[in-house]
């Protein structure tokens, strides 16, 4: 791939960046990234990956934009209310960067579709809002050997970890199973400071860019957490568990599971 003149201009701040350069930019333009969830995390992730010139972006989300989303889901605008989030995201990405091919998928991930959805992509980003999807993404990515970024936010807190299946700790190495139903509040039940979604989502976006360009050390075997009230960022060192049900050498979990997750609905 050779960069066009307009691309050399558009991506000049990457190209002059020592570790990325023209070669790194070409890798970005050739990369395929799937973002699952076009909400609080998916919004900044999609905006930054589009601006960075990631050549193919898949976006999966079954929801439509509603008024309560606009406090933090910065890819959606007031006139988008009622529109599928993937359509709204598609329109913004195309406007930011026509270099990007967008595949909007207006659906939710579940055990029957996720392996097919992720198969064609180089990297998967979890921007979902429920445990069922987070475990499903973890398990499917381990089974399909797809690197991915886990992300979660709640109130003033965020956490993220990058997973290289079977090479680094997976989500299930840390959390064996989802918590009991209704034990854990999701955003809609607990609230979230809008900018926390941006803080975490941009960390995830940076991990994607690092993975594709091969720059730096990925956030593997380290759970990055932060609390926006104290602005304390911490890393907890974790490791692959020899008894992990999904990523160990003798996994006990070999089929995907659809857990019944708490539903994210403010009005319920």
């Amino acid at each position, binding site marked *: 791939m050779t960069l066009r003149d307009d691309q050399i201009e558009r991506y000049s701040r990457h190209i002059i960046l020592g570790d990325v350069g023209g070669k790194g930019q070409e890798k970005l333009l050739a990369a395929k990234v799937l973002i699952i969830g076009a909400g609080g995390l998916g919004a900044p992730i999609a905006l930054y990956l589009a601006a960075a010139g990631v050549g193919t972006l898949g976006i999966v989300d079954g929801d439509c934009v509603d008024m309560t989303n606009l406090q933090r889901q910065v890819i959606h605008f007031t006139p988008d209310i009622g529109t599928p989030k993937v359509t709204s995201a598609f329109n913004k990405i195309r406007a930011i960067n026509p270099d990007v091919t967008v595949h909007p998928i207006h659906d939710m991930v579940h055990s029957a579709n996720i392996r097919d959805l992720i198969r064609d992509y180089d990297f998967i980003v979890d*921007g979902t809002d429920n445990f069922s999807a987070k475990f499903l993404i973890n398990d499917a990515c381990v089974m399909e050997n797809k690197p991915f970024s886990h992300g979660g936010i709640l109130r003033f807190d965020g956490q993220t970890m990058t997973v290289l299946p079977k090479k680094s700790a997976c989500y299930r190495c840390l959390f064996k199973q989802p918590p009991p139903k209704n034990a854990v509040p999701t955003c809609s039940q607990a609230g979230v400071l809008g900018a926390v979604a941006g803080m975490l989502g941009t960390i995830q976006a940076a991990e994607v860019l690092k993975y594709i360009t091969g720059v730096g050390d990925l956030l593997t075997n380290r759970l990055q957490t932060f609390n926006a009230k104290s602005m304390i960022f911490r890393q907890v060192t974790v490791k692959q568990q020899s008894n992990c049900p999904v990523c160990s050498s003798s996994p006990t979990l070999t089929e995907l599971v659809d857990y019944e997750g708490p539903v994210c609905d403010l009005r319920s």
Partner: protein
Amino acid sequence: MNVTINGQIEQIPSGLTIVGLLAHKSVEMPDMVSVELNGEILDRPAFDTTLVSEGDSLEFLYFMGGGQ
């Protein structure tokens, strides 16, 4: 005795199990917490039987389900 919890040195009573420590720390929803003791993630059944010792380093990892 002194232990380190999420990077902070804290004084706790001796003889606590993990369940006891979670209660002592008034962790609201213990089901939400995964516990790493000296670098090893504990299986949940071990929460009842594992005693916390002087100098232990513990990390409480919280489930964070949000993202929307």
